[in-house]
């Protein structure tokens, strides 16, 4: 079997070693595009123009996440870029979009409206509403106004599929938004949206 020899300077966390010599002199900007704050879902943007389309008018009204899309725990790139809800401990699950560092987010981005927490004080309740609560608290603390999210309770999974082409959050227990047995997806979604437990 072929062996790959790793550099002893490779970081613990793996990934490719940065190639080429160290940069010298002043670093010119790669582009003139203004960076945006990275956040995990609809209605969680802190500033105008900081959603995926760049078209939102004010805080809290954006249509989609600016953080990289991913579908499971530990796959977020950096601070504040993880969703949560399906995996992770109680503390992680209370902090969607509010993780401290890379790979500490405990679920997919963006956060579909149907997702509920599986541990912690928010167990059985909407993850998106929890994320929105954290966002609103932050805005109050910063003395900032914010608008309504395009969907009151976050983006429904079917809507995400329609705009993204596909959507997946991990887990083997089945699709929460599907029709099943004697359920009413609409009723379940309404309960979750009103802050009730699934």
């Amino acid at each position, binding site marked *: 079997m072929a062996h790959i020899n790793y550099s002893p300077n490779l970081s613990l966390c793996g990934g490719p070693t940065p190639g080429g010599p160290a940069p010298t002199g002043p670093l010119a900007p790669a582009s003139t595009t203004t960076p945006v704050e990275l956040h995990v879902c609809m209605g969680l943007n802190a500033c105008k123009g900081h959603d995926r389309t760049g078209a939102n008018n004010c805080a809290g009204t954006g249509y989609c996440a600016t953080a990289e899309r991913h579908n499971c725990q530990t796959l977020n790139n950096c601070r504040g870029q993880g969703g949560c809800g399906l995996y992770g401990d109680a503390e992680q699950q209370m902090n969607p979009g509010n993780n401290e560092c890379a790979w500490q987010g405990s679920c997919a981005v963006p956060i579909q409206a149907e997702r509920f927490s599986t541990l912690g004080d928010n167990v059985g309740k909407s993850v998106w509403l929890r994320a929105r609560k954290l966002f609103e608290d932050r805005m109050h603390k910063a003395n900032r106004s914010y608008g309504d999210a395009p969907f009151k309770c976050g983006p429904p999974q079917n809507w995400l599929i329609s705009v993204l082409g596909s959507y997946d959050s991990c887990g*083997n227990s089945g699709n929460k938004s599907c029709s099943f047995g004697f359920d009413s997806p609409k009723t379940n979604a309404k309960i979750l949206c009103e802050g009730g437990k699934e």
Partner: protein
Amino acid sequence: MMQNTFFRAESEVTPANLGEAIQQAIEIEIATIPIYLYTYYSINRVPNQAAVSGMISQKLVSAGYSLQDATATALDVSADLMVYANKAGALIMSVAIEEMLHMALSSNLKQALAGFPELVGKSPSVWPACLPGHEPPFYIDRAKFSLSQLITFMKIESPHPLPDAKLLRAPIPYKTIGQFYDMIIECISTHKLEYRTDTSRYPQLVPGKGYYAQNNIDTIFYDREHKPVFTNSPKSSDLICIADKDSAISAIKIIVDQGEGNTGAQHFGPDYAVDCSKVIPEDYDNPERTELCHFEKFAQVYCEYVSLQAKFDSLGIGVIDISQFFVIDVPKNPSTVNYPNKITAENPINLAAVSNLINAVYTYLFVMVENCYKKQTGSTQYEIFMFGIHKSMIFILNSLCGDIMVSTYKDPIDGKTYYAAPTFEDYPFGLASSPKSQLVALYYLAYPTGNYLEQRVLDLPDVPLQYNGIF
């Protein structure tokens, strides 16, 4: 895995052999993991309700039902089947994650009392396997979901000695896992032992770090109204740092109570009969009575299968084996060497290569957990656990298991066609290069052009293999 079990007829746990006894405990816990995971992955937790309902409805109409009655009845029984398949998976997974907790608790115990816990290469190497030291021995297969497999699971978790006297060969050192742990408690209780409490030198896996979560999306199932039901209690036990006699005994009690319930819990009747009449308070593992012990969880899966099969039988449409709707036909005790080592028209992936990769990821999990017990600096342990173990277990391994199980192959042993399945064999990492480098090489053998897992595999922590106690 121990080929020669530690205990002999006259054995007892003493301070002199305590380390070996706890190592045996670790290996008992490890032995359960591939067994439960294999059966778990043989379950399709989300069967096609429309297909099941349609088939039943057609048979009911043929049997003389009106279309309206047939449709209503088919919807009813198919909904029960949907709930059952998902529940069976959730309960088995809820037990599997607690077995991983038990492995960690036993490892903490060894780290505190007797030395470095050894985890790599300790999965059963011969199948069918036996629990190390359990007498009477009984065979355990990696097998698809069935009533007989559930009986095996209940044998593993049985709170009482197994009733089949024909299997008895010799005086019994321990008859249940609980009795085995009792021998360790006895030793800990009656001797003044030195506890290695300097966790900077002898780190343990401790609570409060997010290492262990009682529930996740895989331990829940949906009821008939599609409401989630949580199979583990959110207040269920967590990791414990072992620092003294009391914490050591508390850790052991978690392991025993979660497995077997409290004193007086139900057990097998004669000839492995399962009592499906009721759940009693002792069957729960916590005072709030919100979490069943492992034995009773498996008993519930067993009893509800029998009940659901009877419901289908009572429809008057002939014998319909309900397992056909949700159990994937995987082989018993498969080996990677029996998987085809090439891409074919039927199999767009190289099954042997993917299976080797799965085994390497599975084994690397133990490599990483072992490293968590090594003296570390800064947040290394946390990073290994969160970025390595969680990512490997929840995302990479689970994804690979899903990938391999869509392919079929003809087994060279019996000539039958099966779905391929993860074999959960220990991968023999060599010492010439790091385990991660070998894992990455295996990834590219399985997926030469890369795929969605490539960066995730490359991102794994690079941790060394322990050899003769040295990393």
